[in-house]
């Protein structure tokens, strides 16, 4: 997922030209969608009418099993973030604090980071089975790289004065990590977590679409298999909203720090 930066522009007034243009664009897209749906130009149901999608969305949100599947996916992503994030943090701190280690190993992380992680899925199935374990593993390897690289970069950006102060107080390694390193590299770590979360969501959900009988990815591929297009649109809409919302929330955490700074 792309690093998009934070957009801190103040909210536009209700009838400002920007707001009006946004409303016009949304209205135009909806009208075009409805016209295409009614025209029959595309295969029936490929572009269902908005009312049908709205109904599917409402049904989805009132469906109890949907929340169970959402819980499964959220749990897998949470565990993946915990394992991959912590491992990435430790590796990042090690690489960032030692020049030799950084020069020896960081290139491997840098070039392995952007490789398509889904290709490891057959291996993860072999190692962790077809259940949630392999999905957690996919999320873990996906989020490890951005967190590790961000933590390493953040570690190098720490003001050396802070490190000298810690050492002059004879702080132990644990105290250095918890009192100096982590607070000083909060922003890069949050940035890494934000990127890591995005790719962990993708890794986990893609794995669920490939081989699973639970989770949101399974629901999406199940909707495709049964050609239930309104439900698929509803699932994608909710998923996109959730992903963008969580991403913005983590970004906002970094934003608050930036303002205080």
């Amino acid at each position: 997922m792309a690093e998009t930066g934070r957009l801190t522009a103040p909210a536009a007034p209700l009838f400002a030209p920007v707001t009006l243009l946004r409303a016009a664009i949304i209205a135009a897209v909806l009208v075009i969608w409805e016209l295409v749906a009614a025209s029959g130009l595309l295969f029936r149901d490929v572009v269902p009418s908005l009312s049908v999608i709205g109904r599917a969305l409402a049904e989805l949100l009132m469906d109890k099993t949907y929340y169970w599947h959402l819980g499964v996916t959220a749990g897998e992503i949470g565990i993946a973030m915990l394992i991959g994030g912590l491992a990435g943090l430790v590796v990042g701190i090690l690489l960032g604090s030692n020049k030799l280690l950084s020069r020896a190993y960081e290139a491997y992380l840098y070039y392995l980071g952007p490789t398509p992680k889904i290709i490891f899925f057959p291996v993860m199935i072999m190692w962790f089975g077809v259940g949630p374990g392999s999905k957690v593993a996919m999320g873990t390897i996906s989020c490890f790289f951005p967190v590790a690289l961000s933590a390493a970069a953040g570690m190098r950006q720490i003001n050396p004065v802070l490190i000298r102060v810690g050492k002059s107080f004879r702080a132990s390694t644990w105290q250095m990590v918890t009192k100096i390193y982590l607070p000083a590299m909060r922003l890069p770590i949050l940035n890494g977590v934000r990127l890591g979360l995005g790719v962990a969501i993708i890794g986990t959900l893609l794995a669920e679409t490939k081989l699973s009988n639970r989770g949101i990815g399974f629901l999406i591929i199940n909707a495709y298999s049964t050609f239930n297009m309104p439900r698929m649109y509803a699932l994608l809409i909710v998923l996109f909203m959730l992903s963008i919302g969580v991403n913005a929330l983590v970004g906002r955490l970094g934003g608050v720090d930036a303002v205080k700074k």
Partner: protein
Amino acid sequence: MTARAQNNLVPFALGLGTLICAVLLAEILIRAGLVNRFIVPMPSQIAGAFHRVITEEDIPHRFLVTAREALWATLLLALVGIGIGVLLYRVKLLRDATETWVAAFASAPTVLMYPLFLVIFGRSEKTIIMMGFVAGLPAVILKTIEGLAGTRKVLVNVGRSFKLTEVQLFWKIYFPAAMPTIFVGMRLGMIFALINIVGVEFLINFGGLGQLINDLAERYDLPGTYAAICFVILVSVIFFFLTDRLEKWLRPAA
């Protein structure tokens, strides 16, 4: 040997040495029966499978299929992505209205739309190309805007003093000045596109290198699967390395 070369050699040797040690350790553990060889094949078996996979599975053809898909996605990204970026830069109101949407789209897991694209485009190369294109689009648009907006005022003033038309100003001042940043966007876009292309090939079992991994895994050809994964990693790393070098060459000051 100079001190600088020696300085570079030690980390390189340490990195490579660790990799070799890890491979040897895996070989020993599997041979000793401490790791199940039906789950993790021996590195020597994987190395032996390389030749078989390359010759029997027609890797050159599959590589070309994936490269063709990536090329089409890149062309679409250059045409549409840079085009939209230029449009948004030129029409400020439109940019103010939609830039946050593009940024939000960049953080959305667009690859999960692949079942939708399967319905629209069928199980074909078109689906794979479009998935690659959609994944890379936000990065190209945002970086194009950033590049054009970052053009130094003095360059624009020089152009205006020569009474250049708006079109001339764009092609002779704005575009060349924004080129390095636009290339950064294209590089990011190509990386996202390649990740999605190989990923979707794997998921829908169609196309080039991604499909090969899926095929071999379904045949339970473990050494072959591992060899194919290593091959894809190798191709990805070479691709990222080359584009990284190209980017550094374009932005020597960065």
